[in-house]
């Protein structure tokens, strides 16, 4: 447990299933919030903690499968575990293809659900860590001067100092000074370290 308690969001239109899941999930010392519809969930304020969604396929209004698609549009990046009273194979294939962790027909073994929840929370925790690292790097990168950023990009794409100096019409000594500043401000231990950071920064927008 890294600080914040993870939260499981249960979305099911049956109050009795909601209450039962609430109790089951609390019994393994996880946080839980329950919702009767996807709208209710969307309107709620979600805590800043690792989480995952336990979603009923058959819901009034937006169905669970439709909601899974909607989530991508509304930039909700929580792992989803489907539970269903009447699942068929094509439905489960569709859900799993769209990235669902599990597709459990009701009634399911409690351990199967809890295992899926743990996989979901672990996945979300890793995603949150990745995006935290990228956010920190971006903060450091934003503190560089525009000249330093220019030099960092050239250094990390493998250009030697002499070439950079020629390209930017600077002396080689000046390039070396800027380069040292970049290493210090980015807290990079080596050139390889800096290259990895540049990678994360450029790829960050796609993977986050």
């Amino acid at each position, binding site marked *: 447990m890294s600080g914040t308690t993870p939260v499981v969001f249960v979305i099911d239109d*049956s109050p*009795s*299933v909601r*209450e*039962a*899941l609430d*109790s*089951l999930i*609390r*019994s*393994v010392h996880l946080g839980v919030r329950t919702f009767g519809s996807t709208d209710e969930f969307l309107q709620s304020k979600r805590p800043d903690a690792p989480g995952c969604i336990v979603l009923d396929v*058959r819901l009034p209004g937006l169905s669970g499968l439709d909601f899974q698609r909607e989530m991508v549009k509304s930039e909700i990046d929580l792992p989803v575990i489907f539970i269903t*009273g*009447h699942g*068929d194979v094509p439905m489960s294939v569709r859900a799993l293809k769209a990235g669902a962790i599990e597709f459990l027909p*009701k*009634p*399911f073994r*409690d351990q199967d659900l809890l295992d899926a929840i743990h996989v979901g929370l672990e996945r979300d925790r890793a995603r949150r860590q990745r995006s935290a690292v990228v956010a920190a790097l971006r903060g450091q990168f934003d503190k560089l001067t525009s000249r330093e950023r220019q030099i960092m990009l050239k250094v990390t794409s493998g250009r030697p100092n002499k070439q950079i100096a020629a390209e930017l019409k600077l002396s080689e000594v000046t390039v070396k000074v800027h380069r040292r500043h970049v290493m210090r401000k980015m807290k990079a231990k080596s050139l390889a370290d800096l290259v990895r950071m540049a990678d994360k920064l450029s790829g960050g927008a796609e993977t986050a």
Partner: protein
Amino acid sequence: MKLQHLRAITAPWLLPAATAALAAAIFIADTVTDLELAVPAFYTAVVLLSVRFCKKREVILVGLGSLGLTLLSDFLTSDTATTQAGVINTAISLLAITTTTYLAVRIETEKEAAYEARSQLAHVGRVTTLGELTASIAHEVNQPLAATVINGNACLRWLADDPPNLDEARQAVARLVKDANRASEIIAQVRALTRGSPPQKDWLAINDIILATVSLIESEILQNQVSLRTELADDVPLVQGDRVQLQQVILNLILNALEAMSRVGEGPRVLTISSARNDANGALVTVRDTGVGVAPENLDRIFNAFYTSKADGMGMGLAISRSIIETHGGRIWATPNSPRGAVFQFSLPVGMEP
């Protein structure tokens, strides 16, 4: 069926009597008048009237009768000299009666076909509705049952906690009891629903029902490359019951048999449907297949609701079949077929002599 009832109510004896009177009047007029008058042409009216209250075969009889009467009155009046015009007139009358009868029979055939198609459609509609209803009931019952299972598991986990959380465990059990009661309430409601529509009670020939059902899914049988044998005894007593419900039972047994045989890769696929008079003078229907069969330990359970051996089965077909047969006072059971497959049989109590 309904169509004939309607006719019986609107014209119990009046129309047949009037038609007979008309025929008699034509016969007398034809006999006392000269041959030159084409009175027998009026027999066409008799034929057309008979369509209103007669079946196809009876209409043909009326037509033949009219022809006979025409010839008879010809014979009775033949002591006067037969003129050429008289012979031609008689021929025209005979032709008119024959043509009219033929057309009347054609119309009747079309009407019967239309009625048959309509009743089959109604039947299919009812089966589909039943399927939808079943799916919906299954979902309704499944929700509280799923909650019951989750609550039971949650309770075990609260008790296994260190220290055990008795308060949470107690609440979980309280919810469990509530949900189990809810499930049983839903089932009670379904029971009340089925009680609300008492089955029709008609005298039925079980062989007709078997043949009608088979004709509904003949293409399905062909598609599955199954050879169908029907062994229908002609001394099966009539049974009292609801035609559509009994058709549903037979349809369900046939569909199950086809499904069971589709799961067998090799060997002959033979579906045998037979009827017989049973020891208690009731009707016995047997549906025998060469499919995967039923494990002996499951023979008792297959009629339970929600028990299914199919990946996408609802487990309701045989349960509904049993409840239908039982409301008819009968019994339904299954035995293994040899060398492979299953035999499903139901008996209906003693009825009326055929």
